[in-house]
């Protein structure tokens, strides 16, 4: 095992973490401000990927597709907030889960109806094709570095938005006391729609960025959604900072587990068996980490409300 391999795997973990952060930030923001569990967040991720693939295929430009993914996901988010989600704020979490699960089914079959059952093609833009050299003699895919860069920019942007702007102040106020900020005359309905659309746009951005790496297909959002939930539970529900740390922790632990566990086991048993058992253990690893963290900090690492 070389240093180059180790650096490459750490970057891989970081990149997975950044992608999860884009998903988890929206999810945790929506939960923090509106107290809503949104299972359809994965569908917004899928909408971003499909919008990017369809527009990129029509115009020939990934960048226009990327812009379209933000617009499409934010629009879809705003529409479902106004038509469906708004009716759920006062209900308990079971009703929210049922309604947003129904939205998953509607979006999945709607997407299939529009785009067909076969996966779509979305390629990395030519500007970001290929690999760059790493210290230690390795190589790393340029596009994945770019994703890490986007994650850093989004994290900074969210920090500035929430701590330095009027909108951010209202979001923080909404998190602390919803009734009071409405009583103070803030238009809470519009605020909710804006926050929901913002979260949706982040999910759509993640979908479009990842769509170029993976396959753009119906149902792509749900695996990402499950990991995003793990992230916000670890980070503390409602906390953006928690989402960032949780995402990077999950990304790095998952990647390093997949890489190191089979290798460690191979010292004790035949390689084929070590591969099987190591892979099985690695897929449990992030859930074990989550259980451990919850055992010691039941409300997550950076709980927003105490």
């Amino acid at each position: 095992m070389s240093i180059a391999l180790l650096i490459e795997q750490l970057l891989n973990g970081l990149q997975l973490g950044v992608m999860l952060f884009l998903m988890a930030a929206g999810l945790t923001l929506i939960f923090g401000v509106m107290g809503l569990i949104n299972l359809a967040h994965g569908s917004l991720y899928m909408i971003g990927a499909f919008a990017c693939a369809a527009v990129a295929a029509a115009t020939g430009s990934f960048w226009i597709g990327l812009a379209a993914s933000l617009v499409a996901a934010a629009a879809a988010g705003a529409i479902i907030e106004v038509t469906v989600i708004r009716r759920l704020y006062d209900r308990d979490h079971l009703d929210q889960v049922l309604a947003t699960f129904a939205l998953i089914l509607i979006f999945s079959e709607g997407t299939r109806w529009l785009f067909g059952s076969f996966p779509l093609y979305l390629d990395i833009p030519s500007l970001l094709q290929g690999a760059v050299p790493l210290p230690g003699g390795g190589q790393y895919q340029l596009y994945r570095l770019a994703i890490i860069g986007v994650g850093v920019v989004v994290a900074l942007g969210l920090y500035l938005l929430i701590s330095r702007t009027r909108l951010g102040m209202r979001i923080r106020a909404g998190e602390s006391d919803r009734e009071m900020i409405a009583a103070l005359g803030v238009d809470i309905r519009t605020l909710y729609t804006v926050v929901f659309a913002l979260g949706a746009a982040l999910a759509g951005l993640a979908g479009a960025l990842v769509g170029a790496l993976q396959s753009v297909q119906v149902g792509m959002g749900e695996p990402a959604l499950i990991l995003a939930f793990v992230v916000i539970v670890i980070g503390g529900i409602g906390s953006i900072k928690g989402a960032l740390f949780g995402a990077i922790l999950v990304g790095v632990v998952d990647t390093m587990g997949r890489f190191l566990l089979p290798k460690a086991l191979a010292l004790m048993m035949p390689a084929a068996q070590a591969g099987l058992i190591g892979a099985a253990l690695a897929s449990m690893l992030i859930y074990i980490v989550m259980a451990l963290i919850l055992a010691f900090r039941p409300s997550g690492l950076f709980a927003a409300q105490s």
Partner: protein
Amino acid sequence: MKKIIAAGIFGLSLAASSLAYAEPVKIGVITTLSGGGAGLGVDMRDAFTLAMKQSGNKDVELVVEDDAQKPEIAVQLAEKMIQSDKVDLLTGIIWSNLAMAVVPNAVAQDVIYLSPNAGPSALAGAKCNKNYFNVAYQNDNFHEAMGQYANKDYKKTFILAPNYPAGKDSLTGFKRYYKGELAGEVYTQVGQTDYAAEIAQIRDSGADSVFFFLPGGMGISFMKQYAQSGVNIPVMGPGFSFDQDILPAVGDAALGVKNSASWSKDLDNEANKAFVEAFQAEYKRLPSVYAAQSWDTANLILAALSKASVKDKDAFRAALKAADFKSVRGEFAFNTNNHPVQNIYVREVVKEGDVLTNKIVATAFEHHKDAYAEQCKM
């Protein structure tokens, strides 16, 4: 008077002829039409219904249902089709885990099941059944062919598959024929979408080639990421990751990749030419290997129906086993365990105009039989 007699005779003859043919046959098709794996099921269903339509056989009635790639739904559908629809035959399942959930139960109730795709090893060996016919392959077959072919050029292969029964069957099949050294053997998660960690290991392993089995969206993700990673080691795999349903989504990253399958669009026989032409004319896209296998399944059923009544199980099973139909795969016969004896080819991904497709470059096996037939006591 004459006229009346003539009309009477005509009417009688009509009645007689309808007696000979109008025995309705109900076929239950359980396949995946929603969710991420729907592309495979849609190809299966489309080829099957097209074959039935072209045959002009009005007595066949299809009951098509979507299993959503979930074993529990497939089991419910099979029960419903057997108990309330009273189907004579069952077919359609794409995935091995669904087949394992449905087939043993169905064949135990004396319903004949014809597999157009999945071929888990258990059903080919100890758990084989006279009511179970696999028209596609035994799961190991394509991988065995790639192992055999790899011996020609490669000495140190890195192998990769998802951690589930078909994934293990795959690497077992590859290793059964591959004689070189393994640079690494990695099992990934089912449904995994990011392969950066595995690609980093491939880069570091000193392998001279990579063999992978990642069906559906997993293969698309792997190929796209691999092409961008800067690793230039040649890849190969079974035809599932390079077939017509996913090639457009992989794009040029797949060009030149060698893959194994029992069928290819350019196989030179009359039945295949007619099939590719009819499929393309009807659906405006090229057929996949799933469509080809399903087309063969439909034609096998039609051929058997013309020989024996589906109500006479023994005669109908014998008619199926004779496999007296024109397969798009050329020569086709059933082995003792009701699994195919067929050629397996090595194909290469090429570009025809703007369309990515496959052409045959070698024959890995002739009249290949699976490794489990001996364990089958039928």
